[in-house]
């Protein structure tokens, strides 16, 4: 992996600074720890199934790190390629909706015009005890126990 990073760094032409400094970076900070992987899996609901996937991620980070070589002093950051476009404002009238039947057809399970989801707060198993993912989208806790309950409605 180290060798490949060097090779990539040398291949692509850069500005003033050469890729050697980046090569040093990728060695030191390029390793992605198990904690970070677990954190990412929880946040993005992806599955780093194998060591190879982690390696690929490390390479991607090293590749992106080469942006540090560009001198951006005094340059305004661009947040969106649409920055010089006009944001269109829509008038406040009702134009859509009333397609419950169509939308509900997309759902695996439906109960009386409601979409059905598994209950919230399913916590991911720890890295050590990997269990197969459930087939329907498991809703991982982003908000915890929501406000509404059936009894209170």
């Amino acid at each position, binding site marked *: 992996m180290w060798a490949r990073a060097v090779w990539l760094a040398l291949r692509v032409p850069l500005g003033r600074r050469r890729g050697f400094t980046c090569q040093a970076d990728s060695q030191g900070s390029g390793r992605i720890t198990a904690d970070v992987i677990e954190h990412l899996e929880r946040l993005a609901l992806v599955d780093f199934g194998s060591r190879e996937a982690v390696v690929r991620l490390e390479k991607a980070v090293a590749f992106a790190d080469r942006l540090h070589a560009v001198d951006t002093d005094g340059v305004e950051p661009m*947040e969106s390629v649409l920055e010089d476009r006009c*944001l269109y404002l829509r008038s406040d009238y*009702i134009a859509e*909706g009333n*397609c419950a039947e169509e939308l509900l057809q997309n759902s695996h399970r439906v109960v009386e015009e*409601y979409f059905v989801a598994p209950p919230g707060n399913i916590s991911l198993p720890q890295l050590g005890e990997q269990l197969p993912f459930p087939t329907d989208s498991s*809703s991982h806790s*982003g908000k915890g126990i929501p406000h509404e309950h059936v009894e209170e409605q």
Partner: protein
Amino acid sequence: MAAPMLRWGCPGTRWALAGIGGGFRHRRGASIGSTPNPTREQSTVAQKPLHTAQKLRKGEHKWAAVVGLEIHAQISSNSKLFSGSQVCFAAPPNSLVSFFDASLPGTLPVLNRRCVEAAVMTGLALNCHINKKSSFDRKHYFYADLPAGYQITQQRLPIAANGSLAYSVCVGKKRGQLVSKRVRIKQIQLEQDSGKSLHDDLRAQTLIDLNRAGVGLLEVVLEPDLSCGEEAAAVVRELQLILQALGTSQANMAEGQLRVDANISVHHPGEPLGIRTEVKNLNSIRFLAKAIDYEIQRQINELETGGKILNETRSFDSKLGCTVPMRDKEGKQDYRFMPEPNLPPLVLYDSTTLPAGVDSQQVINIDQIRDMLPELPSVTREQLVQQYGLLPEHSVTLLNEVGLLEFFQNVIKETRAEPKKVASWVLNTFLGYLKQQNLTVSESPVTPSALAELLDLLERKAISSSVAKQVFQELWRGQGKTAAQIVSEQKLELLQDPAALEQLCLATMEEHPQVVTVVGEGGRGSRPDTFP
């Protein structure tokens, strides 16, 4: 009862802590065991003395509480923030959902002009600086009622920032003094609402209704300038009044149009801020105050018994009157904010920067909106004081009670009585009856005209004030009679004819000669109740 509780730190009562284990859990009441000390009952929640955390106890360190509020107000608009589906409270499930709201691939957000105007109006009313350029971001988290997996919000560059909200609280022992305070507003941002989840614990499933998904919200983030539940309640009430006066939100907490989350921590003044907890699920202003005061007290108790405050989210259980942990936090939630790639920055103009020859529908002029601002509650209250000579506290009450101001103004219109008199009747007698029977102004059996007529009778001195109260009670029964009718039917008029009065007095004196003698001899100190 509060006093002995705070003395737990003293050696003499350390034995009382044996079973608690340093934690303050609301279910630990069972572990009290043999101790007869009633203060241990503090760990169950029924008797919660409502006092601010700043009360000094002898020999105790002073605690200061820091409360920050995050308020979400649903924008009153016809359609949603980024789509054309309708905004409506009660509708068949998933009937007000467009393809974008359901996050079907290939759909894009289109910003609603009315929502932007509402945000600018609210920002101006709250003395904020309106950012001429604001941008939208994505806040990522997974939940079934957030179909896209992210919420479009304005975290980095909100539409308005650095404002303030003036409010007043009653202080002093008699709670008669009104003190004016200000809370700083960190920012106001536009964001999407999520759908509604109904939990069916029986079948281990959640039912999702996306009618609310995508509705425009105004998030008002306040700086942590507050220190107790009462201040928080006053702030939220004032914000509610402002939003309703502006028409930007109906701000009805019971219908979920106004949601408040509180961040609470305690510390000793001069020391760094303590760890804060977040309290959610606050459905009314009353519960908001209760929950905040409870949480402050809980944190103080926890720290004084050597425990630690966890940075967690808690929910308010209104039945038990306490806050309970909502979930185990595995560390701070990482929302992975990123700029929303589908929306260019939102640019606002004022009269000087307005570009020429542009479609007026496509530009928003801040100055134009400022000119259209309606009268704010603070101005209304000031006017009441000026126009009618009312006390500030009275004008606060008139505005705080829904419909009371209108009632008051209607009575004033139809009566010749003095405004102060009207105010006294409306705020004391009328409001007193309402509160006693837990009615709203709209449910009152007494109409403004009826009260106006009664006050006219009183003003003409046709009846005495005690009789007036009697008649009011009769009117409250709502049997359709007017004040004049009741007075004539029950012959409650004050006798005006001097001759008749003299005759009545003479007759009375003749019937009770012994009383006359007593009075004649005693002079001073004759009790009024000796006269029939």
